[in-house]
């Protein structure tokens, strides 16, 4: 599944990022890398973008970009 499909409050581990263009490059620069843990903190009231916890900070990105991030959910 992708980061865009997580439920609010769910945690997941990043498996891979799709694409090799500058969009993917920017996602990686911000720390969205294989093996990192992400948590979906919220979805904006109008349905987009998302608020994600990544390491020690909060990142907001749109579903279009989040769907490039393949994840496996964590149970806890």
């Amino acid at each position, binding site marked *: 599944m992708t980061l865009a499909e997580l439920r609010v409050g769910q945690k997941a581990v990043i498996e891979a990022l799709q694409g090799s263009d500058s969009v993917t490059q920017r996602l990686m620069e911000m720390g969205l890398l294989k093996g990192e843990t992400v948590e979906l903190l919220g979805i904006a009231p109008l349905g987009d973008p998302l608020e994600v916890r990544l390491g020690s900070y909060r990142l*907001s990105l749109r579903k279009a970009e989040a769907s490039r991030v393949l994840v496996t959910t964590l149970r806890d």
Partner: protein
Amino acid sequence: MQNLTAKSGSASAVKEVVIALVGNPNTGKTTLFNALSGLRQRVGNYPGVTVERKVGRFQWGGVSFQLIDLPGTYSLTPRSPDEMVAVDVLLGLQPGEKRPDVILSIADASNLERNLYLTTQLMEVGIPVVLALNMTDLAEAQGRIYDPAKLQERLGIPVVALQAHRGIGLDALRNVLAQTSSPPRAGVHFPEIVEREAQQLAAYLREGLGSARGRETLDPSSARFLALRLFFDQNGYTEKALRNRLGEDLAGMLREARARLDAAGYPVPATEAQLRYAWIKDRLRDCYSEAPRPARDWTDTLDRILTHRVWGMAIFLIIMFLVFQAIFTGAQPLMEGIILAQSFVADFVRNSLPPGPLRGLISDGIIEGVGSVLVFLPQIVILFGFIAILEDCGYMARAAYLMDKIMARCGLSGKSFIPLLSCFACAIPGIMATRVIEDRRDRLATILVAPLMSCSARLPVYVLMTSAFIPTDTWLGPWLPGLVLFCMYLIGLIVAPLVAWLLKRSLLRGETPIFLMELPAYKWPSPGMVVYRMYDRGKAFVVRAGTIILATMIVVWALLYFPVEGTDETGAPINFDLRLAELETTQAELEDQLQDLQTVGDLSLEAAQKMALLEEKVHAIQDEAAHLQGSWKRQSILGRMGRAVEPAVVSLGWDWRIAMAVLASFPAREVVVGTLGVIYDAGSDVDETSPSLQAQLKAARWGPDSPLAGEPVFTVATALSLMVFFALCCQCASTLAVIRRETNSWLWPLFTFAYMTGLAYVGALVVFQTAKLLGC
């Protein structure tokens, strides 16, 4: 300090260490910049781009420092000319700019891993790097206490712990800056094959660029840095910029090199991010200890409310309403004060100088011009006060988060919302506020549509036209004028998104910028920072846009003043300025006599008759003055221009006098009301609610040469056409001056003026012709 370069030759040679300040957004970079350089700052623009060039100076330990503030960024991966500036400055390739001696890399300690990504890139530039570890208090509150000494040892660069907003650690930082002279010992280690490819490409670059530039060759570390950027940034700006200089071979070379890297198991772009983050994690491992974490994170709690579906939106709307109300009405008393002071000074000049071009230039050109610059200051300062508070406390990012979906529909992002909202009060502060938008194309699109929002300067035009010409006796009763006014505001709201959408698909087409935004932890805004932002933006406006506005005002004044000699109603030659001055003196004398009579309090019939006679004379003089002013302005250069364009505007329902008033309102839309007053002989002291002006407009008839001769000029259709024109046009020299300043180019203000005037013309044409068909 072998690295310090002395200005050679002169006996008074001053050593100046150039420091480049670089960091992620939200790291307290501006706070540190101000703390180090105080208010000794100079703001300018880098040529050809929209990036502000900000330089501060300070002295420490007998050394002079020059501090260059580079735009906040998450990486040195240029994707536009604007982002290339930072790279060019750091490599010493920026024309006219000395290469920095030291890079000051500021990082947010509460999120150090991601902040160090940029630092690892800076460490490869080839000049000394100092790490300012800022917000250590916040990191501690979140559970991490860093050991700066250990960090320094592990990273291989000097590290200073800071709390810039409290001024803690600044002296230590200044000492380190004065002593640092050697480039970083080590950095991220790239695999053998990457290094080999980079060395080959670097050699090619040094040869190609060295000969092309005809002066000193690129130093090895700069060449290696550029080579890495060329490998890793597919379709990046570095490649575009260098392809122009090195030829098309470069693209083929890069494609082959990337294929070789990929074959060796190092795909682009993943390799770079993975290697850097792996290095950072490894270095940080034993540099901190865990601190007790509070059970509850304030930011989590606040975010749950402030981004809530119901409460979050409600609070957002309340905050936006407050901001808007403050610029719209809060600035009013200050603006009125400025206008009052301006007319006081202008009167003083009028009374102390003899009539003539000089008096006119000073009182109606320069003082009016200065006043019209200063009058924007309250709105700018208030808006930037709010923006500074919202940004400093972390709410600005939430506002963009909440509004992104709406703005995304027309190709913009949530960051455009507050600038555009501010434009309903005034486009000037709104356009200046677009600096919060990092993406260049998004920012340009926002700037270009900003003047379409119905600002407060349009209101006088709307009010004059609706109250004089929109009937209240239809089946809609008293609601019709209000409805018309509402529609005028709606025009901007409908047209602006359409234009933005079109621009993003035509002129400003390009890769869709992605919306990736950090949501910083909430904190109390620092009052010093808020005051600084208000001062800084106010000054930037007055100094850099003010001159253009002033010049425009003087030009329009001259077009209305000359020729000062013309003919009166009987065809006799007359000097309008002198004749008006005479009338003014006579009127003042008569009014004095009247005053005297009133003070005496003589109640006799004779005295009453005398007073009535005097009053009559005063009225007669006022009428004559109004007529004289009217014919002066009608015979002026601008009046002739109005006649010249009449054929083009007849289809909008305008006669040449309306055309002239519209031309005269180029400096500012609201000027049209006063100009209509003068050329329709209602005198110069009218405003949009004056009954005399409304009566004169209703009485105006088409001239004898027109096929409509004798018909009223102003009908409902004409009024609507004029309102729609003003809703869409860019008759505002100040807006154009600010666009010039913010885009650092004349192209964009010219484009804005042209497209908006075109839109306004077509809009007015359609509305007038439709209304006429409907019999209005």
